[in-house]
């Protein structure tokens, strides 16, 4: 039935259809509403379809504005998709949660003991509780990590299990994540959004808070530090912005107060791990990693890895750095292990396994193998290790030929395969396409090692299947997510993530070091945002002029328009454009070129591409932006892309688009000025911005005011330049109706109090560059300081009246041009010096291979 055909219900819940013939979370059995869903039912009936739709929209808006995405690998282009949140949470009663929680805690404890044993004495193998091939044949078993002895009583810091309710009403474990469990950050973000869109329901239901998980996580990580225990430096190691869950890495780093780094931001020296920062090397004590085991160290693990830190394993071996989870913990991500957990639990914990796992048969054993082969069409076949090409195979969906092929693979390498029972999991009410429908749901739980055992996050990340009846649930497959509400029987206390200092303790102020890569990216974010604004202002002036031209029927002198078009090519670096070969015809009909410079994202230098790059650069340092700034960055991208127009740009709509964009860019600048602390990050952003504004202004002036023009064109150009530089009003106030070149130059070149002037940019640059960290004990000016001093001095010594003159026979203002050209040289020198002094965060590395390929 399409949405339109559905009857308008008086009550949503009355029409809730549980026909999937599975156990439903809301109705444990036919017609029996679970009491803990009662509050939700009332809320849903009260809200109605429209109210629910409103909440859904509100949730998506918040998620989008906060930049919550899940990146999907899509060939080279890597797209990100907004995170999807169902406005209906999954309810779990207090009584039920206590059962699940006990099972999760026990399971984490068990997994931890197995991990410690595999990389230690291996008694489970020798006692016959774990088959050798199941462990030694698993790609996740890292021989380099055996005997490495990670710090702490529980090496497995974090783990995660996917849970679903079986037809018998009990919660089952489908699989476990032990390497770099992801999703806790998404769960947190979901919670933030839910409390915004349904505050009353949240309060009335006594929902347990997630801080109960994050606080022990912070404590545990801090305690892992081998040194600097009072104030350890903890980093989150991410594979980078192209990782599917990069949002989460940045979000958690921000929430927990850690530095977000990539592999080549770190360097091992003297057996210790250091962060390359603006201030120099800074020792790292603990790494919360999101890089997979095999990619963590190209020296000892996968040598083709570009995501890791060379020498990391040795540093961990020496005990100079703690890594959570320890490298090698992927060995537990093995569905074959499920078959052996009950016995191991009895043996090492002397307890029955509290949470059952999905029935699993490991093909490394003869009887189990035969069973799997005989029931191939009834089972889900899973390889024992997860790889990029890993997928669960539903035997029933295979053709005869495919079944034969699978059978042969299993017989060749039996220990690499498992068969699992296909279970029909429970459904939960979900808001899909404007309707409340039952969907299969999987709950991902999170456990962290605490002082006296594991602590489970009260709740977790719930994913629901994208299609009705579909059993596969994953973010990659495009599933939706839900918040999970664990209810409490009494009001829930507020838990703060802040640590409380003792009474007399005075906390030391500390600024985290700024990673060199971030410094580099902030510098370029400043440059791109300013470049976008400069180009947008110039384009706006050009379109305005062209409208006037049309209205006045060609009254505007050509040289005037041509100067502006040429300055556009110079400013955007989109040669040949209006400057070099083919310029004549483009100048005659500039519309296609202007349209391209506005909209063509694939053209380097166009406004669209500059905005795109700005967005990408800003994304790489997203943990530095306060939420409001991130929203503006996001809105800039969204609005520009959404508004793209046909090739007839030049209409008043183009003007509106540019006006809107310029407003947003100015808002970005305003927000950075108001909400970023004046630390290194802000400094770099400002230096980039000021440098770019100076360069943009110079290229505008060289294309417009340097060449000789007749007096009408000159006057119009001066006025337009003032408009582009946002200076016309101030100019009028100051000089009334007289417009002359020396006064124009006075204002936009020389005036150190005018924020659009060249002098103002140089003045700022001089101040900011002086604040950059310098080697101790030297009184010499740095090369960067010299460059800026030279430029500023030359400008201050210049005389506006002199600069305005044209010597006989030269045809252009040579004095002005020489001055501006020397300024450009100095500014480029400044940029190069900064790059080599502060941003050289990564050098290309080379494998020293044993191959004797060339004789010396």
């Amino acid at each position, binding site marked *: 039935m399409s949405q339109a055909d559905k009857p308008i219900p008086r009550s949503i819940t009355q029409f809730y259809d549980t026909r999937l013939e599975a156990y439903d979370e809301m109705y444990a059995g036919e017609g029996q509403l679970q009491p803990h869903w009662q509050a939700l039912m009332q809320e849903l009936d009260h809200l109605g379809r429209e109210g629910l739709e409103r909440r859904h929209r509100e949730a998506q808006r918040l998620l989008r504005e906060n930049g919550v995405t899940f990146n999907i690998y899509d060939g080279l282009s890597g797209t990100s998709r907004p995170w999807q949140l169902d406005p209906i949470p999954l309810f779990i009663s207090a009584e039920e949660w206590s059962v699940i929680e006990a099972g999760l805690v026990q399971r984490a404890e068990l997994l931890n003991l197995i991990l410690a044993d595999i990389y230690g004495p*291996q008694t489970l*193998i*020798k*006692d*016959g509780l774990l088959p*050798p*091939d199941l462990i*030694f*044949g698993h790609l996740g078993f890292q*021989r*380099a990590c*055996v*005997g490495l002895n990670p710090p702490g009583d529980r090496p497995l810091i974090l783990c995660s299990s996917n849970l679903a309710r079986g037809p018998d009403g009990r919660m089952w474990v489908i699989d476990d994540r032990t390497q770099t469990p992801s999703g806790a950050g998404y769960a947190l973000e979901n919670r933030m959004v839910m409390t915004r869109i349904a505050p009353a329901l949240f309060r009335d239901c006594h929902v347990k808070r997630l801080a109960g998980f994050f606080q022990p996580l912070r404590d545990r990580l801090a305690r892992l530090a081998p040194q600097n225990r009072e104030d350890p430096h903890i980093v989150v190691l991410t594979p980078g912005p192209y990782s599917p869950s990069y949002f989460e890495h940045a979000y958690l780093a921000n929430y927990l107060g850690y530095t977000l780094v990539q592999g080549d931001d770190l*360097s*091992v*020296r*003297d*057996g210790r791990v250091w962060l390359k920062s603006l201030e120099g090397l800074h020792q790292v004590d603990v790494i919360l990693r999101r890089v997979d085991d095999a990619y963590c160290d*190209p*020296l*000892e693990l996968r*040598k083709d890895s570009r995501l890791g830190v*060379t*020498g990391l394993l*040795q540093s961990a*071996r*020496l005990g100079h750095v703690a890594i959570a989870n320890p490298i090698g913990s992927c060995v537990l991500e093995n569905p074959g292990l499920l078959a052996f957990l009950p016995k191991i639990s009895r043996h090492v914990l002397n307890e029955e396994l509290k949470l059952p796992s999905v029935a699993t048969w490991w093909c490394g054993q003869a009887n189990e193998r035969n069973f799997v082969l005989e029931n191939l069409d009834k089972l889900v076949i899973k390889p024992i290790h997860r790889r990029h090409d890993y997928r669960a195979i539903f035997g029933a969906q295979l053709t005869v030929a495919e079944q034969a092929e699978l059978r042969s693979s299993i017989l*060749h*390498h039996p*220990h690499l395969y498992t068969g699992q029972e296909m279970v029909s999991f429970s459904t939960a009410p979900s808001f899909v396409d404007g309707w409340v429908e039952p969907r299969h749901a999987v709950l991902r739980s999170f456990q962290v090692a605490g002082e006296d055992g594991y602590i489970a996050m009260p709740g977790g990340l719930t994913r629901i299947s994208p299609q009705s009846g579909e059993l596969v649930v994953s973010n990659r497959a495009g599933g939706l997510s839900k918040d999970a509400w664990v209810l409490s029987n009494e009001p829930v206390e507020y838990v703060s993530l802040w640590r409380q200092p003792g009474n007399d303790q005075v906390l030391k102020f500390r600024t985290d070091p700024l990673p060199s890569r971030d410094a580099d990216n902030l510098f370029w974010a400043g440059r791109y945002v300013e470049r976008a604004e400069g180009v947008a202002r110039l384009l706006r002036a050009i379109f305005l002029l062209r409208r006037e031209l049309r209205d006045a029927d060609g009254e505007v002198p050509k040289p005037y328009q041509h100067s502006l078009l040429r300055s556009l090519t110079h400013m955007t670096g989109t040669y040949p454009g209006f400057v070099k070969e083919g310029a004549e015809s483009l100048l005659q009909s500039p519309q296609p070129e202007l349209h391209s410079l506005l909209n063509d994202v694939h053209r380097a230098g166009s406004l669209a591409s500059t905005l795109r790059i700005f967005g990408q650069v800003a994304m790489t340092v997203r943990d530095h932006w306060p939420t409001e700034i991130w929203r503006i960055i996001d809105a800039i991208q969204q609005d520009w892309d959404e508004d793209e127009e046909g090739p007839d740009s030049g209409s008043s709509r183009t003007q509106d688009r540019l006006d809107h964009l310029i407003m947003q860019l100015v808002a970005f600048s305003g927000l950075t000025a108001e909400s970023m602390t004046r630390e290194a990050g802000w400094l770099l952003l400002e230096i980039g911005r000021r440098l770019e504004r100076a360069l943009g202004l110079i290229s505008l002036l060289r294309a417009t005011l340097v060449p000789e023009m007749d007096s009408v064109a000159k006057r119009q150009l001066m006025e337009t330049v003032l408009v582009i530089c946002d200076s016309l009003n101030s100019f009028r106030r100051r000089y009334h109706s007289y417009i002359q070149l020396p006064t124009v130059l006075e204002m936009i070149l020389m005036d150190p109090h005018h924020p659009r002037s060249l002098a103002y940019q140089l003045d700022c640059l001089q101040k900011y560059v002086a604040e950059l960290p310098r080697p101790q004990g030297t009184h010499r000016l740095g090369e960067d300081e010299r460059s800026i001093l030279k430029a500023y001095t030359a400008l201050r010594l210049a005389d506006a009246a002199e600069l305005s003159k044209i010597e006989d026979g030269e045809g252009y203002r040579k004095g002005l041009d020489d001055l501006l050209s020397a300024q450009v040289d100095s500014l480029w020198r400044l940029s190069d010096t900064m790059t080599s002094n502060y941003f050289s965060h990564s*050098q*290309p*590395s*080379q*494998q*020293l*291979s*044993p*191959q*004797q*390929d*060339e*004789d*010396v």
Partner: protein
Amino acid sequence: MKYRITHTTTFIYKASAGLCYNEARMLPRGLPYQEVFSASLEIDPLPQDYYERFDYFGNRTVYFSIQQPHDKMVVTAVSEVETGVSPLIEGAETLSWEMARDRLRSDLSDEIVTASQFVLDSSMVTVSDQLLNYAQPSFPPGRPLMEAVNDLMQRIYQEFKYDPEFSTIATPLKEVLAHRSGVCQDFAHLAIGCLRSLGLAARYVSGYIETLPPPGKERLVGADASHAWFSVCLPGFGWLDFDPTNNQLPGDRHMTVAWGRDFADVTPLKGVAFGSGKHKLKVSVDVLPIG
């Protein structure tokens, strides 16, 4: 026999490297039939970091890093060892290959659990039907394992051409098998693959062999090379080495350095250099008998 072994590796970079990290497995292991009097690495320039450990397989492993700009790195391993012949345990001759295979599957003693890892695929050796087919003629039912492996070694020696031009380190076993040629590494990998496809445990051994100069010629210093062979597990009796390149059971003229599942586990020297650009490599090995 007593030997002094000098194994020198020189890397010359295109550009100066600011940092480099290396892992070396060049110091010989001590064994019941091999005494190591001295073994050390000389590294130029001097590394800032230097740590020794035993790896998972018990090989002496050195981690070092150089943290100053350098455009050349020379690593020299100098060792003095005395070799003997590993004694054969009585009764091993009669152990059939099927019994060996079955014991690897059923026994959970330390020895067998350790050995069972050498039955599984490793990064450079993956079992296949081709390998199984090649191995089978040497393994008729009931044949003693030692005799069968000896036969396999002989066939590899006779049917494969020793050809340093053909092989690089990355030559896949499939090609070695198809072209019937390779070098000592390939022959070792080939034999290991054959044995594993039968469910037997086999490991890769790296080391050196004393080479005699042609009659009437002087011994040339540095003209020797690294060598490699394989070892098979006789469950309950230990391991026995075979050298398919020379068709012999290694004796006191073979010097063992390290062992693992394949070459990747025992690479003598590997590393990562930052800023170096491409590099050139020169290796020289000198095996000097010292009485």
